[in-house]
């Protein structure tokens, strides 16, 4: 068994126009930038992207946004991305705004064969009641808004409480980044670069991982695997230059004043 692709271009070649795509990463951390670049180069457009953020300043998914290759985004936070805001407000981009924990759980649920689950998050807010603007028209009025979500009462710690139903978020493809991987697709992440990566990987029908270091099966202790290879279909090994290109969004060092 060898899931290694000969190149990033090869690995993403069948991601076509209109595909849905779960993408790992939080801010600029743990983002599969090389696979994103390969998708840009391959030309697919009208993509639906599920990702906590959507990159910024020419980094990560921002390079697909800049070329208007993304038509719909499911995300929890995009406050740092001006081009994202412009496309959203001018009705060029549909945005399903989802609480961060709900987004994580919806991706995991997709991978776990759980089509829906109840959560306390968002009860009593627009997330439950509906009306969040998914798409503006060209005059800046709401064209598509979120639907209301079903609510159910459960008894929790002896108290009846309301919860809303969220649905799983399966995608055609997932692209993720890991520190270490083997030819069977087993992955190991480092520090907070783990974030959404294992969950995006679970949600994809076909999952592609870029790894900073590739090793042979057996070199990763079975106790230390973070994501079992069954969730990964293709592996791309990064070059040392690609690994070194990692960027930092907010570089802070000891003694700096907190904002």
């Amino acid at each position, binding site marked *: 068994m060898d899931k290694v692709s000969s190149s990033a271009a090869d690995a993403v070649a069948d991601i076509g126009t209109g595909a849905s795509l779960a993408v790992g990463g*939080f*801010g*600029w*951390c*743990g983002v599969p930038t090389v696979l994103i670049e390969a998708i840009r180069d391959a030309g697919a457009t009208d993509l639906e992207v599920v990702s*906590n953020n959507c990159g910024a300043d020419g980094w990560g998914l921002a390079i697909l946004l800049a070329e208007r290759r993304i038509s719909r985004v499911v*995300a*929890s*936070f*995009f*406050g*740092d991305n001006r081009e994202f*805001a412009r496309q959203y*407000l001018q009705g060029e981009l549909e945005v399903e*705004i989802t*609480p*961060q*924990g*709900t*987004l*994580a*759980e919806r*991706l*995991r649920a997709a991978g776990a064969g759980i089509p829906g689950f109840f*959560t*306390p*998050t*968002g*009860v*009593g*807010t*627009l*997330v439950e009641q509906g009306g969040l*603007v998914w798409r503006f028209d060209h005059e800046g009025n709401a064209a598509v808004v979120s639907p209301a979500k079903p609510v159910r009462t459960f008894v929790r710690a002896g108290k009846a409480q309301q919860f809303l139903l969220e649905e799983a978020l399966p995608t055609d493809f997932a692209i993720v980044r890991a*520190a270490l991987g083997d030819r069977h697709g087993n992955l190991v*992440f*480092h*520090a*907070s*670069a*783990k*974030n*959404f*990566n*294992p*969950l995006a990987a679970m949600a994809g029908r076909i999952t592609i991982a870029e790894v900073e270091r590739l090793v042979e099966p057996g070199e990763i202790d079975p106790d230390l695997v973070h994501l079992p290879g069954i969730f990964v279909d293709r592996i791309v090994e990064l070059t040392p230059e690609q690994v070194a290109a*990692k*960027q*930092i*969004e*907010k*570089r*802070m*060092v*000891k*003694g*700096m004043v*907190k*904002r």
Partner: protein
Amino acid sequence: MTGWTREQIAQRAAVDLNDGMYVNLGIGIPTLIPDFLPNDVEVIIHAENGILGVGTYPDEADIDPDLINAGKETVSVKRGASFFDSATSFSMIRGGRMDLAVLGAFQVSAGGDLANWAVPGKLIKGMGGAMDLVAGAARVLVLMEHMNRSGEPKIVVECSLPLTGRNVVDRIITDLAVIDVTDQGLRVVEFAPGVDAHMLRSRTGAPLIIDGR
């Protein structure tokens, strides 16, 4: 001088943190709290992007692009830290294991409703993890200025802004007072220096219980 500075608000909030607590600190004033903790109070700081045991900003030599907090700043970790994925991270929150979440607010209502993520007419940035935090944390503490920049009260009978959560806030610490959300209503626990009942009531958009009345 009347009232507390940002730092004094954080200092007052630090009093509410006990040894061994798991806490999530939002962006802004909440991040100042650790500077005011006594040496014998060890709290474990959670970053919702996947860290328990967040430390200070790192030494230059220890900067790691893979190690950032939820505000996307480079950080270090303390002894006993752990890393995990985002689903596990929010499991801790919704599952009730997070003892305390501290965040900012645009508005808080008399019933403990919180609005802190969206202002109609302004660009929506997304709620991030705020809705999960207020729905799940065992206790929610809001730190904010008592009035907004237009001089309007931020503590109101009903929030006019889109809610982050309904009946979720336990305590509010502003530049003017410490106020608890109780079943009977908003109860003033403490005044900042130079603040009295009359002044506080005049700057608050909801009834306050002061000295039991």
